[in-house]
């Protein structure tokens, strides 16, 4: 008896807070889906707009916890810092691309390259930061991530000495800062 009495208001409260908690990811998913609908359809008929509203409502109703699992307000800060990270990454990609282009067109290609695998350990913990790190390494020409596991150990195939030395270094610092993880 007493247990059910205790559970009553608390269950209601958690239900209410759950509702508010799922409200923000729901609306974010809805805005994202509807924006994508407008961009991809490109027409503004009332029929198409209402179809888009209905379908994006259904999708965000069923899958609101798929895009933003365990949502916190930290997400916004990460988003802003990630946007600041993109220009640096783009500049790095361009620089390294010209390096690889030089290697490819060089007449004595096999003297210039020196492929080897390097292994290094990082302190990245969450899935999203490890994924970002691995994809950033692969996007920067001259290095490919061979494997990355949840302990933060990366194996990287580098095509020459210069691109191998650039790793873990500055990119790791940046990724660590973006996701707010201590070193």
């Amino acid at each position, binding site marked *: 008896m007493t247990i059910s009495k205790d559970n009553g208001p608390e269950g209601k409260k958690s239900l209410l807070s759950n509702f508010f908690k799922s409200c923000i990811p729901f609306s974010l998913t809805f805005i994202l889906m509807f924006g994508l609908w407008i*961009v*991809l359809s*490109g027409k503004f008929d009332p029929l198409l707009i209402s179809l888009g509203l209905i379908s994006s409502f259904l999708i965000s109703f069923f899958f609101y916890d798929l895009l933003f699992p365990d949502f916190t307000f930290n997400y916004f800060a990460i988003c802003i810092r990630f946007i600041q990270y993109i220009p640096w990454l783009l500049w790095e*990609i*361009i620089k390294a*691309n010209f390096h*690889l*282009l030089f*290697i*490819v*067109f060089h007449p004595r*290609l*096999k003297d210039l*390259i*020196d*492929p*080897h*695998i390097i292994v290094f350990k990082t302190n990245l913990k969450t899935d999203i930061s490890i994924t970002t790190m*691995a*994809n950033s390494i*692969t*996007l*920067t*020409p*001259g290095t*490919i*991530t*061979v*494997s990355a596991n949840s302990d933060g150990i990366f194996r990287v*195939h580098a*095509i020459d000495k210069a691109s191998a030395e650039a790793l873990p270094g500055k990119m790791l610092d940046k990724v660590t800062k973006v996701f707010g993880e201590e070193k």
Partner: protein
Amino acid sequence: MDILAIFFLVTGLIFFTGGAIGIIRMPDFYSRLHPAGKLDTLGIFAMVLGLIFYSLHHFSMDTLISILKMLLIVFFVFLSSPTATHSIVDAGMRAGLRHWTKKKRR
């Protein structure tokens, strides 16, 4: 505007050509993937930039939406290309293929 469009299109073309030649010239499986997976991403970025400048001749709602679509293409290529490259390398590693080194073939 035309000059910018031509410049970026030619840049993208050079990168794509470099990628294709790199695939032929590199010595082994893993190093072939370097130009294949990466010169293409910057190549497609430069080409889409050129197309955006080309379509900015007369600005309207349709142009804006097609520009956004092109940017979406770049976004998804930047997401999927490293993942695909990584999975190919992983498959090679699982099959037990050794990577080419300088000392062995000398």
